[in-house]
């Protein structure tokens, strides 16, 4: 399985990758992108099985990435990992076709719970 982690903070990307490993998803091919625009390029070349994206990022935000992907009829499994999650954000995420949202700071347990559900 291929997982793409999209976050403008490299410290946060490292943390997500480590948490994936601790949640039992370490055996997968994990790639990284530093913003929505870079992620969109990468996904166009090769669609992963799962995208884990931050919401607030320069160049192209996480929600803009998701909306761009759905506009291109790409239905990759997509979840947000974000510090901010207002009602409006959750609504926009659902409308755009996101599968889940995890709030930061997150734990290994939250990754286990969500990923075991969406990846089955």
């Amino acid at each position: 399985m291929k997982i793409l982690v999209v976050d403008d903070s490299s410290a946060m990307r490292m943390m997500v990758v480590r948490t994936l490993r601790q949640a039992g998803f370490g055996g997968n091919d994990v790639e990284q992108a530093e913003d929505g625009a870079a992620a969109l390029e990468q996904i166009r070349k090769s669609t992963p099985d799962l995208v884990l994206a931050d919401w607030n990022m320069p160049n192209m935000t996480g929600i803009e990435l998701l909306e761009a992907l759905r506009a291109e009829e790409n239905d990759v499994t997509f979840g947000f990992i974000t510090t901010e999650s207002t009602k409006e954000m959750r609504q926009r995420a659902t409308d755009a076709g996101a599968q889940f949202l995890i709030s930061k700071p997150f734990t290994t347990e939250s990754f286990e719970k969500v990923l075991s559900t969406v990846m089955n």
Partner: protein
Amino acid sequence: MGAMTSNRETWPTVIDGFDGITRIWDPRNNLCAAKILPGEYYVTRQHEIITTVLGSCISACIRDPLSGVGGMNHFMLPGDTSKSLSQWGGGECMETRYGIAAMEMLINDIIKQGCRKDRLELKLFGGGKVLAMDVNNVGERNIEFARQFVRAEGFAIAAEDVGGPHPRKVNFFPRTGKVMIRRLRSLQTQAIVDQEKSYESDLASNERPGEIELFD
């Protein structure tokens, strides 16, 4: 607009979302000051002070020199003493998620005001070893995390005053970038330590799986 006075009606407006932060009048500087407590942060576009008192906690003062928008946080990592100092930072230790979240929230809110991340100027303060019997060296761990985070994110540290045995009062002027540090006497240490301890136990008791939501 007239000059700022102790009358709150003359104080600059607060960015949405920061209404919960207490502001006080600073007669010495003739400016209002947003006073942040452990776990809080504040961002402003205005000429005002952001102030806090640090024991072993860390504050990052971050600003965009072009627009004068800036902010400050106040955080610590809960003290898991089973980890060696070298394991801190860089995502190698789960406790650092609190620090990463504190830094990220501050940086995101500054960027939302229209500032570019690569233009931001960063200063670090705190991480004192304020109690002689603090064998866990919480302050040093906090400093180590902050430095590793800053390095990983590609920021340069424009200035810092960290470590040492003193608690500190920090006054940050985001508009100019000036930071004034006052090292506090040991008389005040216990109250600061108590406040940080209560923040740390809040972190520990709020230990819950990061909130999750599965959409249909």
